């Protein structure tokens, strides 16, 4: 395997509604920013891959317009996954491994504010036996949360503590959407959204875009501050929630093992719901001295199709700031943690 490093990360400020810029302008800003920070000339980028979803935009081929934000002239080697940007990064990493290119750009974008996300995500379900029930994404997560609470004396307080810590951490993240000092007691006294989930257990709806530039060791420009991808792997599980043990995340566990997720200082976990962070920590065997989601995580900002790749960016920020040496970044896709990606990152 070739050694590959993340050179730069850029994002829009994550917010409930991006009302100043179109998708393509969001893409243009993050791509320009990420390329500039990488120290590579734009013409040196050997491959580009993006992640997004047509259903967020409410139209077919929504990603095609994003090309306009790249200045793709002369034509570029480019691909797109209908997945979170974390998988775009994976494809870009693969491309470098083939030797066909030495540098690559991965980006993602989503404007969830246009629609009603919990209902849009119903469209992700088996269209024969699940989708037609009309079940939304929060209800699906609530079924998982209940299964988790039913086990090992788990409590809603543990979940609320995740929310409190996430939003407190987000105070240090200028780009986060939800932040502040909250009290567990007060949160627990508020009404349920979908029982057993309170509002604080759920992610906000977010608009945003982000981009990373990666390079093989021999293409890292001088003066760069590379964060090395020590391992990256992703796995999927059966779709039907009733076919799995929802309290476990075997796909995360396996991906973590394959990616070599040990000796970590911090972990950025893509856990849109509080209980999912606790399931993921368990699956990855993260003990208490691993700092979790210093950025605030998906509970502080959850741009669909973007939040997974954001975890890589946030892990890099911790390493660049000297607050961590070795970090884990995780991304999830689908309902109830169906598909998971783990990336292990290390400073120079």
């Amino acid at each position, binding site marked *: 395997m070739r050694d590959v490093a993340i050179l730069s990360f850029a994002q829009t400020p994550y917010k409930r509604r991006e009302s100043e810029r179109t998708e393509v302008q969001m893409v243009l800003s993050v791509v320009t920013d990420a390329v500039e920070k990488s120290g590579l000339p734009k013409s040196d980028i050997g491959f580009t891959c993006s992640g997004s979803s047509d259903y967020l935009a409410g139209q077919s081929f929504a990603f095609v317009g994003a090309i306009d934000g790249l200045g793709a002239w002369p034509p570029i080697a480019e691909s797109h996954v209908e997945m979170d940007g974390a998988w775009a990064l994976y494809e870009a990493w693969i491309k470098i491994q083939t030797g066909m290119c030495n540098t690559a750009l991965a980006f993602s974008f989503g404007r969830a504010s246009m629609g009603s996300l919990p209902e849009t995500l119903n469209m992700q379900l088996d269209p024969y036996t*699940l989708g*037609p*029930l009309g079940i*939304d994404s929060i*209800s699906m997560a609530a079924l998982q949360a209940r299964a988790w609470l039913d086990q090992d004396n788990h409590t809603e307080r543990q979940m609320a503590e995740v929310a409190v810590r996430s939003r407190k951490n987000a105070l240090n993240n200028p780009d986060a959407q939800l932040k502040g000092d909250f009290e567990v007691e007060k949160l627990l006294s508020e009404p349920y959204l979908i029982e057993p989930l309170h509002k604080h257990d759920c992610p906000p709806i977010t608009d945003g875009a982000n981009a990373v530039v990666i390079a093989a060791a021999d293409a890292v420009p001088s003066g760069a501050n590379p964060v090395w991808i020590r391992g990256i792997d992703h796995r999927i599980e059966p*779709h039907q929630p009733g076919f799995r043990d929802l309290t476990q995340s075997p796909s995360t566990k396996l991906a973590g093992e394959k990616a070599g997720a040990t000796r970590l200082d911090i972990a950025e976990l893509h856990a849109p719901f509080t209980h999912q962070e606790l399931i993921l920590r368990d699956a990855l065997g993260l003990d208490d001295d691993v700092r979790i989601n210093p950025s605030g995580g998906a509970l502080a900002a959850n741009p669909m199709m973007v939040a997974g790749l954001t975890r890589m960016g946030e892990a890099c920020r911790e390493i660049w700031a000297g607050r961590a040496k070795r970090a884990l970044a995780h991304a999830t896709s689908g309902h109830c943690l169906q598909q998971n990606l783990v990336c292990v990152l290390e400073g120079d």
Partner: protein
Amino acid sequence: MSDAPRYSAEHVLRYDYRRSLGPVLARFFTELRDQKILGTQAPDGRVFVPPVEYDPETGEALDELIEVGPAGTVTSWAWVHEPRAQHPFDRPFAWALIQLDGATTSLVHAVDADGPEAMKTGMRVKPRWSAERIGQIRDIECFEPEGA
């Protein structure tokens, strides 16, 4: 910053998708119309409900269908205090994972119960059938507590 007026409009994506079913789901929905619930049985005895054409763990083809339920046990549940337009009820209700008698896996469906205090993991539920059944998952209107 733009000084243009704000142009905003509703965009509705509406379509009635027509989904062909293939042999396994066709039998499942046909029998559902007759108030029977089928699951797929694997050679090692596991029974998948809703039925599948393949083993979700290995991908191997499966084609043996057996009747399960109709009653079952709630393995997880969630209480909806304020239903959405797409939900099957316009009053509070529960979503549940239900392991039907004879099944190895759980099925997602709605449960009509008096309130969250009436719900409990491990409780027994039975289907309430829709009056008009056309062969679809909502031929089961919902499940309800056994003895209700």
